C-alpha cells in the first residue's frame, strides 16, 4: 500500500443541482503513481466530479483537498485536458503558443517574458508526444489527434503531479486510441493520472484501477478481468444508485494481460 499522503483526498462529497444529488457521498483518495479511470453511465456525474476536483464547481457538502489545499488554490499541480478539442478553432495561435498557455501563472509577475527555457521545455514535450513538427502551425491546420496531443502538452508544460483528462479519446480514431493509451502508460511512470473514459475494454488493459461512478462511487481494490469491469459498469443505470467500490488492478494481472 502507498505510504505517501494522497494527492487528492475526497471526503463525503455531495454535489446537487435542482434538488437532486448528482454526486452522493463520494470518498476517494488518489495516490501518487495511480492511474484511475472513471467509468459510468451518461449523467452519472463523471465530468461533474472532475470539475469539482479542478475547482470549477463548488461542492454542496463534504471536502476536496489537493495536496492539503482546496481546489483552485493548487497552483500548477494539476494539468487538465478537456474533452472537446475542436472549440475556438480559428483562434489565432500556433500550437507552440497554445502549449505555452499552460505555463502561464497568473500569480507570477506580469512583466516577465516567456523564458527560453520554458519554450525549450514546451518543444521537448511536443517532441515526446510526437508532434514536434506541429509547433509552428496554426491550430486550425492540425488534425483532431494532433490537437489532442497539443492540449496534453499544454497540460504537461507546467510539470503537474496529476493529469486530469475528460474523455480524452472522443476525437481520436481506433489506431490513435491505442497509441494514446500507450502514451498515457508511459507518462504514468512519472505522474498520476485520473481520467474519464467510455472505452471499457481498452481502459481495463491500461488503467491500474477503475472507479464506477453513478451518483455514488463503486471502487474496487482489484479486478481480475475485463469481465468484472463490464459487470460493474452495466449494473449501473441512472435510475438505481449502485454500491460503492473501486477496482484496482494488481500488477501481476497487468503483466499477464500484456
Amino acid at each position, binding site marked *: 500500500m502507498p505510504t505517501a499522503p494522497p494527492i487528492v483526498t475526497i471526503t463525503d462529497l455531495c454535489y446537487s443541482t435542482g434538488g437532486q444529488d448528482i454526486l452522493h457521498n463520494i470518498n476517494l483518495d488518489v495516490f501518487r503513481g495511480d492511474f484511475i479511470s472513471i467509468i459510468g453511465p451518461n449523467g452519472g456525474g463523471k465530468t461533474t466530479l472532475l470539475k469539482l476536483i*479542478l*475547482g*470549477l464547481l463548488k461542492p454542496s457538502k463534504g471536502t476536496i483537498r489537493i495536496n492539503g489545499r482546496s481546489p*483552485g488554490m493548487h*497552483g*500548477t499541480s*494539476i494539468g*487538465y485536458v*478537456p474533452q472537446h478539442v475542436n*472549440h*475556438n478553432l*480559428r*483562434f*489565432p*495561435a*500556433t500550437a507552440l*503558443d*497554445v502549449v505555452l*498557455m*499552460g505555463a*502561464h*501563472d*497568473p*500569480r507570477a509577475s*506580469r512583466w516577465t517574458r516567456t523564458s527560453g527555457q520554458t519554450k525549450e521545455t514546451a518543444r521537448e514535450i511536443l517532441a515526446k508526444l510526437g508532434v514536434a513538427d506541429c509547433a509552428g502551425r*496554426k491550430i486550425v491546420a492540425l488534425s483532431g489527434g494532433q490537437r489532442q496531443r497539443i492540449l496534453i502538452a*499544454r497540460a504537461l508544460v507546467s510539470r503537474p503531479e496529476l493529469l486530469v483528462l475528460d474523455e480524452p479519446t472522443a476525437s481520436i480514431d481506433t489506431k490513435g486510441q491505442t497509441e494514446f493509451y500507450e502514451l498515457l502508460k508511459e507518462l504514468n511512470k512519472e505522474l498520476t493520472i485520473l481520467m474519464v473514459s467510455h472505452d471499457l475494454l481498452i481502459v481495463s488493459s491500461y488503467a491500474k484501477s477503475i472507479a464506477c461512478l453513478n451518483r455514488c462511487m463503486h471502487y474496487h481494490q482489484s479486478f481480475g478481468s475485463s469481465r468484472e469491469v463490464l459487470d460493474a459498469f452495466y449494473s449501473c443505470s441512472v435510475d438505481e444508485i449502485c454500491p460503492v467500490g473501486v477496482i484496482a488492478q494488481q500488477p501481476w494481472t497487468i503483466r499477464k494481460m500484456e
Partner: protein
Amino acid sequence: MIDALQFEFMRNALLAGLLASVICGVIGTLIVVNRLVFLSGGIAHSAYGGIGLAFFFGWPYMICTTLFALAAALTMAAVSRSMKQRADTIIGVMWAIGMATGILLLDFTPGYNVDLMSYLFGSIMSVPRSELISMALLGGGVLALVFFFFKDLLVMSYDEEFAQVQGVPVRALYYLLIGSVAVTVVVVVQVVGLILVIALMTIPPSIAEKYTSSMLQMMAVSCGLGMLFITGGLWGSYRYDLTSGAAIILVAATGFLLSLLVDQVILRKRRQRWLKAHAIDGNDR
C-alpha cells in the same frame, strides 16, 4: 487627399478615424475571438436609452450615457454567463428595449436636438478638438488595461475553462472586458456613429484573423486595416461628396470581399501545388 488636409475639419476627422481604428482594432480583436459581436451590438444599441435618459432629465450627457451603457453591458454579461444557452435571446430583448426607451424619452423631451441618424452614422466631419482628446485618453486607458492583462486575456480567450483551472480570475476579467467594450462603444460612437463602430470592431479583425498566427499580430493588423479603410473612406467622401460613415463602411466591406477572393486564389494555388506534389494530373479532376 493631401490638399484635403489643409482643412482643420479634415485633419480632425482623419485623426479621429485613426484613433478609432486603434481602439477598435484592439478591442474588436478581443470581441471577435471571444464571440462577443452580438453582445457588443446589444450594448451599442441599448446605450441609446442612456442618451434619451440624459436629455429627458437634463443630466450630464456623457456620464449618463456611459453609466447606462455600463449597466446594460454588465447585465447582459451576467445574464449570458448564467444562461449560456439563451444569451442571444436576452441580449436581443435588451437591445430592443434600450433603443425604444431612448427614442420614446427623446419624443417626450421638448425641443430635443439629437436625431437618430447622427447617432447611427456619427459626425466624423465635425469632431471638435475636445472629443479627440477624450478619445485619445480613452484609447490610452483601454490599451494600458488590455496590455496589463494581456496574457490572462489570451489564455481566457482561447479556453476559458482551462484558464480558470490555471487560476486566472476569469469572471472578473470577463466583466472587465465587457466593461471596456461598453466604454469604448460610448466614446467612439460619439465620433463615428454606431454602425461604423460595429463595422470597425468586426471587419478588420475578421480579415486579420485569417492571416495572423497570434492575438497580438491580429490586433496590429486590425489597427492597420482600420486605418486603411478609414483613410480610403474619408478620401472618397471628400472627393465625391458622400456620407463619410457609409463611405468608410463600404470601403471596409470591399476589403472584406477582396480578402475572401484572395483566400480562394490562395486555396486554388495550394491545391495545384498539392496535386503536382502527389503526381496527379491536374486536368482530370
